[in-house]
């Protein structure tokens, strides 16, 4: 199973693949920004699940922009937004309106992440 992880926090981005591998046989594509995501377009578009951090830094393209970019290129996998922001933050509200994606607030319990992974496998 392939998972795209778009996360601007270096530590979280580094430990996410190790954690996911404790749950399932996972191959991760890592990106710290939308620009890095675009550089890895081929690998990213072949993933089954995308974990997109919404806020990728002030003034930078957000996870919502990454979602639009993926959809425009025919991304067929499941999309989960992750956010440390408040639920009523405009960017989070925008992500919630997208419908096709799920929004999870950090810190996401490990059991919840495991549920998503298992659901994708089945």
């Amino acid at each position, binding site marked *: 199973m392939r998972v795209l992880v778009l996360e601007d*926090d270096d*530590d*979280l981005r580094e*430990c*996410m693949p*190790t*954690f996911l591998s*404790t749950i399932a046989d996972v191959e991760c594509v890592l990106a710290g920004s939308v620009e890095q995501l675009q550089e890895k377009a081929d690998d990213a578009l072949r993933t089954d699940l995308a974990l997109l951090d919404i*806020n990728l830094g*002030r*003034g930078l393209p957000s996870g919502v922009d990454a979602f639009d970019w993926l959809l425009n290129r025919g991304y067929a996998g499941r999309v989960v937004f*992750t956010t*440390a*922001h*408040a*639920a*009523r*933050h*405009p*960017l989070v509200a925008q992500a919630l309106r997208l419908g096709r994606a799920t929004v999870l*607030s*950090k*810190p*996401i*319990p*490990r059991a919840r992440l495991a549920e998503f992974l298992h659901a994708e496998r089945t």
Partner: protein
Amino acid sequence: MIRTTDYPSRIAWFSAMLATAIGIVGMLLELAGGRHVLGMPDWPAFVSLAVSASVFGALVAQRSRKNIRFASVAFVVNAAAISFALLVRDPYYAQAGDWLPFQANKLGCVLAALLAPQLWSALVGVGLHTASAGLVLASVDVELHQQIVFEPMGTVTFALVGVVLTLYRQRRLALERHVATVHAETVAAQQLARISLAVRDLANTPIQTLELCSAILQQRFPGAANILALQDRALARLTELGALLQRYEANLTWDHDATSLDAVAELERAALRP
């Protein structure tokens, strides 16, 4: 930066300064107008001018420590000085004839209603101007008294209008103070909400990292389960803290620029706020 809670004292201070300035200008006109009246003493006008100028100077000197009570006392002292000058000088106008009686007193009643910083100072101001006119009326000769038409009813009417205006204005000022207080509380609640959310935003990603690392360590080091359980409990408490801070989110109004909310910048801005 002007705090909304400062508005009442600022308004009171401005009103007292305006009243003393009007007192100075009015007394200069009064002084000029009385020049042609035979035997008219100038000293009451000069005393009034000196008092008004002193009060104005005191208000300017104390402007950095605005205080409503001080402004009220200043207003009453100024009104007393003007009333005293009119009390001494008006009988000379009455003796000279061709006099529109108590115009300054009537104007004083209206100005007290419009400018006095507090209810008591407005009522005292109206009372001083009315009493001054009444004493003058009582002191003039019976023959002159009969020549003064529409008095004391004219002055009493202005005094009553002054009282009604005072009550209306004080009610409006009380409402403005209430609105200013509510506004200040709303601003404080917004600031607290933004700070709380900024703290939560900064903490959530590191907590997520700790959460995942804890899971990884549990799998790799089963022997350390007891220690890792302690870490999990600590993480759970930090997560609960985040949930508590989330309650402040209800007080927050997001503006259009909030899409670029930067938690660090928000905390730095909060530290600079007075």
